[in-house]
């Protein structure tokens, strides 16, 4: 008989009892932005950028595809909440109630065991940041974004919103105006970080928006793995997450970016992630999207240098009431580039999983190879699963392939497992785990266990 994992739902759905030092009024205006910028002690160029972004935001239309965001009233979103806690460089310095929140998520434990560094963000600010001393000695910069803006203004200015300009779309402009928190990670040339670094984002207040900005710069020949975790307790009002990730992979560098997103089911997750890869560099996205009410997220890789590579592996779960519009974008701009996209989705209980992808091979990308594979598992006939990949090829010297299939768990598979003594529930759970295994095996062990637990929890809630 298979041993059952005891699941503790409360771990992912608790309300941290953290006092706030400052809470901006709902809505968005120039005065508020100036206030946020002043409170963060930012240089003039950043304030200018924020105000310019606000102007663009006001002019931009809503996205003309994807999820319906008519319920999202940006006038009611609280864009900035500073928790009543100074950023701690050691765990002891972090206030008790904040510690409790991250303790429950297992962050300090993870740091002790297998992380090279960790940043923990509560609402709009990083409250804890730590990096192993030996990495600091090698010149690795791992800071919250505000400190990076103050301490390395020229370096940050070189990269900040250069990959995703504030003119990119409405929520990029919004982000440019009111971003707060996030991580700046700089890995010098030829430094290979042996263990992953992590940032964990927690939204604790109802009706808030979280707009963290993450920049990763991997210099020539360097290697780094970065893990992003997201969660929030559920409230009856809408929360918004509109973060941004920009990754610069220099010549021969390797970056792996892992995400496990478990936002509460009242959150609009409208995130933007983009990377640019130079010659012989390699970018890997691995993501597990389980939470949120509605998501629009399409991590993009621009293969700019000859021989650069991109890989994207994702598992998207759409449960009751969820509409997940996710996918990937890869643009091949140079010869001998290659990309591999593997997107999987599970929908059940009336959830809607929508894969939307773009694969573009430009005229210059001769002798390139690209492959996209989508697989969707529908666990009942109340749910919906769609896949719309866009493929654009502008050269006769490229091999491009796409495949997709949608279906349910085969009766014969369930019957076989039940004949071996498993209950129907256990059989289904095992098949689902097998289905997501290619993504899960890319995660560090503890995270793989976590993702499996989360999936099991969600499936048990829906079909248990």
């Amino acid at each position, binding site marked *: 008989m298979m041993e059952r994992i005891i699941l503790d739902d409360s771990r992912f759905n608790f309300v941290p009892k953290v006092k706030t030092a400052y809470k901006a009024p709902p809505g968005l205006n120039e005065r508020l932005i100036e206030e946020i910028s002043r409170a963060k002690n930012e240089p003039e160029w950043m304030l200018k950028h924020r105000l310019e972004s606000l102007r663009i935001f006001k002019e931009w239309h*809503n*996205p*003309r*595809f*994807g*999820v*319906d965001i008519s319920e999202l009233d940006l006038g009611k979103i609280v864009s900035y909440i500073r928790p009543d806690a100074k950023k701690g460089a050691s765990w002891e310095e972090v206030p008790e109630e904040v510690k409790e929140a991250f303790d429950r998520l297992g962050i300090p434990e993870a740091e002790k065991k297998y992380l090279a560094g960790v940043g923990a963000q509560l609402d709009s600010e990083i409250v804890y940041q730590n990096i192993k001393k030996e990495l600091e000695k090698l010149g690795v910069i791992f800071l919250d974004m505000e400190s990076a803006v103050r301490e390395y203004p020229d370096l940050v200015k070189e990269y900040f919103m250069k990959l995703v300009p504030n003119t990119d779309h409405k929520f990029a402009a919004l982000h440019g105006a009111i971003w707060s928190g996030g991580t700046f990670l700089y890995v010098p040339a030829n430094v290979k970080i042996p263990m992953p670094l992590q940032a964990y984002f927690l939204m604790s207040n109802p009706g808030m928006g979280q707009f963290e900005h993450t920049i990763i710069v991997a210099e020539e020949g360097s290697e780094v793995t970065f893990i992003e975790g997201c969660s929030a307790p559920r409230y009856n009002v809408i929360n918004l997450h509109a973060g941004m990730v920009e990754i610069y992979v220099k010549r021969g560098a390797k970056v792996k970016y892992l995400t496990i997103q478990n936002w509460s089911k009242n959150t609009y997750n409208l995130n933007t992630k983009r990377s640019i890869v130079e010659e012989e560099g390699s970018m890997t996205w691995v993501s597990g999207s389980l939470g949120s009410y509605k998501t629009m997220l399409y991590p993009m890789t621009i293969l700019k240098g000859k021989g650069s590579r991109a890989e994207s592996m994702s598992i998207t779960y759409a449960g009751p009431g969820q*509409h997940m*519009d996710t996918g990937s974008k890869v643009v091949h701009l140079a010869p001998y580039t290659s990309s591999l996209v593997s997107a999987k989705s599970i929908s059940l209980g*009336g959830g*809607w999983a*929508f894969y939307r992808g773009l694969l573009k091979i430009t*005229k210059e990308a001769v002798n390139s190879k690209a492959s996209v594979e989508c697989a*969707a598992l*529908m*666990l*009942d*006939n*109340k*749910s*919906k*699963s*769609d*896949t*719309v*990949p*866009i*493929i*654009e*090829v*502008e*050269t*006769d*010297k*490229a*091999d*491009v*392939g*796409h*495949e*997709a*299939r*949608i*279906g*349910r768990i085969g009766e014969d598979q369930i019957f076989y497992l039940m004949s071996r003594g498993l209950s129907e529930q256990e059989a289904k759970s095992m098949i689902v785990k097998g289905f997501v295994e290619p993504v899960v095996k890319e995660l560090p062990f503890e995270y793989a266990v976590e993702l499996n637990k989360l999936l099991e929890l969600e499936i048990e809630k829906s079909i248990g």
Partner: protein
Amino acid sequence: MEKTLVLEHDGEKAVVWETPQIFSENDYGYDVLEKALEKTEGPLKEWRRKKFLEYYKEWGFPKWKRCSLDGMVLPELSFNHVDLDVDISLLEKLDFEGSHRKFVLLGDAFFTDFKIYGDGKHLIRSEDGVENVLVIVEKEAEIHRISKVRRFRNTVMRILVKRNATLKFINVDLSGDFTFDNAFIVLEEGAKLSMRDFRAFGHRKVGYVLVKKSKLSETDMRSYFYQNGTGITDLLYLMRFEGEEAKGRLKGNGVVDGFGKIVFRGILDVKRGSKNIVAEEAEHTLILSPEARMEAIPSLWVDENEVTASHSASSSSLDENQLFYIMSRGIDEAEAKKLIVRGIFSDLLDELEESVKGDVEDVVNQIV
């Protein structure tokens, strides 16, 4: 009205891209409508008028991103006399959006000729102008259509294949500055459709085929295409499953050369309750020149889990290994390329009758 893109689920709607429109001063107006009405008698007269109002007041021409219509000029029309006893309620039942609502309404308000076909074998020759076709298949029909256009043609085709009836439809669409095909095919329970669609050349060639499938219906649809020069071919094939145990297969195969562009959209839309259906799509484009482009958007929209649904799309250049193998058998390079290209269209050529086969063969022989 049957919309092309329907993306909703349990009351939740996705945001669907709305094509920007251009309201042209050179559009057909009341003066052209008057000329059309003068030549029309029977129930179609009032229908024309009604469709014109929607055409004129509500819709501009689409400003498509993938297939620009820059330079399109509507031709002067010369109307044939039409006096047909058409069941207007059937036309309304078979109303649809097509490539764009404007083009369907153009066909309904300004048709220069209106043709009705039933059971039996029919050869349709299409030329410049605006045509409207209604096909009602009671038992068995075969349609061979060949279209050779110089400047402009817009076609609206409504086809109803009744319960357990069968339709074989061969469509050959060659050349033309601007050609728009809008076809809506409804398959009732147990109906069968076999379609072979061949489109070649043309400056802007647009073909949208929407098949609505009932219980136990079967569809075998194969699309073949060739584009070169600076032309753009924009194709959409949509199978909408609305009943159990239906089967639908779509296969696209073609070649793009010169500065040409192919846009191929294959959509399998499986509505809830369509249990145990089989929906398959595969598309491949052979790109023969460094300047040629291909865009493929294969889509699966599935609301029912008891299905087998899959799609694939791919593109490649001429296979060097294939070429080498053929040349190792003593065939020169040019001839080897011809053989490979001919292989793409060989299934189609085998199926064609003499009435249209010659035209298709001429195209295939020109490719390499």
